[in-house]
């Protein structure tokens, strides 16, 4: 191996190696970039396979040359430490860089440069890229479903009110703070329910009645997941307490309930809500499809919620229970004033994750004929005037869902980190 030593840099020729290495590395990237962006293959004179692998080989040699333990040059040390620790890493680094460079031009030109957004018919789409005109024309449908166009402000207003009411708790005066849990668990859901019910479906206060069949789009996703969350939370709390109860019958019933719903897929639960529920209800009792779906998802999600809350209850040290009991508190007093406030604070990130899963699950209501975003996409896709734009629709929906879910997951992650340090 000694004979190969002249290929390794030492103190004397360090800068030669550095310059040659950087030069080779940049040439390899330049080659791929020219190839990808300008579609010119500058190494086309070489035989096939060699021409493909040439940038990889040159880049590898370059990275090999600039690799040193410690050079004192800040930028170089960062590169060496992070992307160039050994030969294997160097190759992976190059492959990833090349893949990113190769993938950029086609996706950019599809999404932006060759795409169309002007006009409002299919004929306006002349480019080879995406047809965002389709998304633009259908945007209101994707958001609000079949809800009448001139009444969309009612949905917007309802959502703004519900969100504002949610933040209201943060501005309560200090002497009212002890009722915070009461507000969020009982009062807030009731108010939110009334707001959404009367504003969106109307029928009172001079608002026109809009039947639930017309609800749809992304707003339906939020309505369903919001209602399911606020209803499944109390249910989950009761089940979690039941599962930890020392009364055997109550414990077994809770365990049975939780394990049953956790063991079946949501889609069968939705089927159940649409074909089995009507059988179980009294003959002359009619229940709206949306209500049935919300009940079904609540029952389903309640089991998951219960497990999350149980985790919080189990995380509390025994001393809390003992201390409460030694003060002479009974079961309910102990739980309401000592255990639950602490446990619920612990499970907020978990609940956030449950809500995230809920939002990701709601597109499933499509299978029982409720047209939320995925359903509206299926509808728009088969519209004879707008055939052949499935890709645009799904990319649009994916971006929207991704932003929502990513923001929520980051938020719950931050909460988790915050509560970890507080304890």
């Amino acid at each position, binding site marked *: 191996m000694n004979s190969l030593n002249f290929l390794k840099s030492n103190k004397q020729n360090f800068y030669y190696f550095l310059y040659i290495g950087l030069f080779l590395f940049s040439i390899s990237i330049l080659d791929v970039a020219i190839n990808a962006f300008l579609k010119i293959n500058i190494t086309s004179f070489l035989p096939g396979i060699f021409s493909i692998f040439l940038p990889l080989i040159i880049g590898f040699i370059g990275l090999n040359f600039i690799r040193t333990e410690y050079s004192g040059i800040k930028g170089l040390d960062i590169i060496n430490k992070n*992307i160039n620790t050994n030969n294997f890493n160097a190759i992976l680094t190059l492959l990833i860089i090349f893949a990113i460079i190769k993938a950029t031009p086609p996706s950019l030109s599809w999404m932006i440069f060759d795409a169309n957004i002007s006009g409002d018919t299919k004929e306006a789409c002349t480019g080879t890229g995406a047809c965002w005109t389709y998304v633009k024309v259908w945007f209101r449908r994707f958001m609000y479903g079949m809800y009448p166009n001139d009444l969309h402000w009612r949905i917007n207003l309802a959502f703004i009110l519900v969100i504002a009411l949610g933040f209201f708790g943060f501005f309560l005066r200090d002497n009212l703070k002890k009722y915070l849990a009461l507000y969020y668990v009982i009062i807030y859901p009731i108010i939110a329910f009334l707001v959404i019910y009367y504003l969106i479906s109307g029928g009172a206060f001079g608002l026109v009645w809009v039947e639930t069949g017309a609800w749809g789009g992304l707003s339906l996703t939020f309505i369903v997941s919001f209602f399911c969350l606020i209803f499944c939370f109390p249910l989950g709390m009761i089940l979690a307490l039941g599962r930890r109860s020392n009364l055997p019958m109550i414990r077994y019933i809770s365990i049975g309930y939780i394990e049953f719903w956790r063991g079946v*897929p949501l889609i069968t639960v939705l089927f*159940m809500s649409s074909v089995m529920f009507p059988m179980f209800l009294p*003959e002359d009792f009619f229940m709206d499809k949306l209500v049935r779906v919300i009940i079904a998802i609540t029952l389903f999600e309640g089991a998951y919620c219960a497990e999350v809350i149980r985790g919080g209850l189990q995380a509390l040290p025994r001393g809390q229970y003992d201390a409460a009991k030694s003060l002479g508190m009974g079961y309910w007093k102990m739980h309401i004033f000592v255990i639950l406030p602490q446990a619920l604070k612990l499970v907020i990130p978990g609940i956030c994750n449950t809500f995230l899963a809920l939002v990701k699950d*709601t*597109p499933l209501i499509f299978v029982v004929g409720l047209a939320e975003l995925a359903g509206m996409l299926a509808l728009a896709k088969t519209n004879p005037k707008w055939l052949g734009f499935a890709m645009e629709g799904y990319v649009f929906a994916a971006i929207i869902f991704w932003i929502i879910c990513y923001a929520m997951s980051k938020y719950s992650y931050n909460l988790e980190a915050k509560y970890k340090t507080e304890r």
Partner: protein
Amino acid sequence: MNNKIKKILPQIITVLFVLGIFGFFTFNAQINMDNRGIDFGFGFLTQESSFDVQFSLIEYSGSHSYARAYLVGLLNTLLVSFISIIFCTILGVIFGVARLSPNYLIRNSAAWYVEFFRNIPLLLQIFFWYYAALRALPVPEKAGPWFGVTYMTIKGYYIPSFIWTNLDVFLYSILAVIISIIIISTYAKKLQENEGKQTPVFFISLGLIFILPTLTFFIGGVSLDFEIPVLKQLSKTSYVFDGGIGLPPELIALVLALSLYTSTFVAECVRAGIQGIGKGQKEAAASVGLTPNQILKLVVMPQALRIIIPPTTNQYLNLTKNSSLAAAIAYPDLVLVFAGTALMQTGKAIEIVSITMLTYLSISLAIAAIMNWYNKKIEIKEK
């Protein structure tokens, strides 16, 4: 006395409440079914189903019974789950390990992969693959071969099928290999515990796996032929591939979406498992003179697997349950065949939905039971 009442009364009330709900439902169901002239019973399972299923692992046609249709659906569900589990494990392990790489680019690309596929609803991903991505594939007559003998077309992926002669001899040889490997590894363990001798079990097993089944080709009269799909013209404009195995695009879309989606969760499990092993463990192992390979094999992996396997099994379970989304793109799985078509034809809502739910429930509970047993077995025995 007072205490006893306090304990028993809530239980009685709860039980009565639950029984009351069930009673109410049964009562209503009875009346409703009487009114509609439906009677409760599972007799329909033996009746002729008279509907066709486009993709089936076992022989099935409209003249078979509903019970057989149920079996077809169940097998299709298990098939898609099984394939997806294999892929999601491979992808999950790769990306989970990549997230811990010292290389900035690899670490971050893996992180973005996870964030990307985890945060898009599964149903949308399935729709994307089925309606958007796979629809962009070429029609059969324009499809070029992949790897020489397989064809990816808009109508599905065509691969060569195997034609075995004396397959049973081959299977027996594999069984023999498994049994002998078990015997050898128990013997090797005993030998190590008693005398401290190490046997290269891995290489012996590897050799056995290759040699014994290969021998059957020469001695046992086993032979293997391939039937390669060939393009066939049906009419002037319509072509199909004949021969080989055709995987329908529904299956491909499902497998893609399920394995990409679930692999992100598996990756997180793997990462958490490897991170869960303290640095002290590795250092302690190194200080007693184990080589890096031995550290990985004897110290890190056994402990990491203990953390990784339970949540990963949970993800497999989720995947199996999520495979029911197949119904949305008309892949004939249990939900579509049984809770969809069969329900529509017979109108036996209660029976069919219950059977479907119980099937998933028993799969879940069975896996959960195995998992509990496994966890008990591998848990650290503290004295």
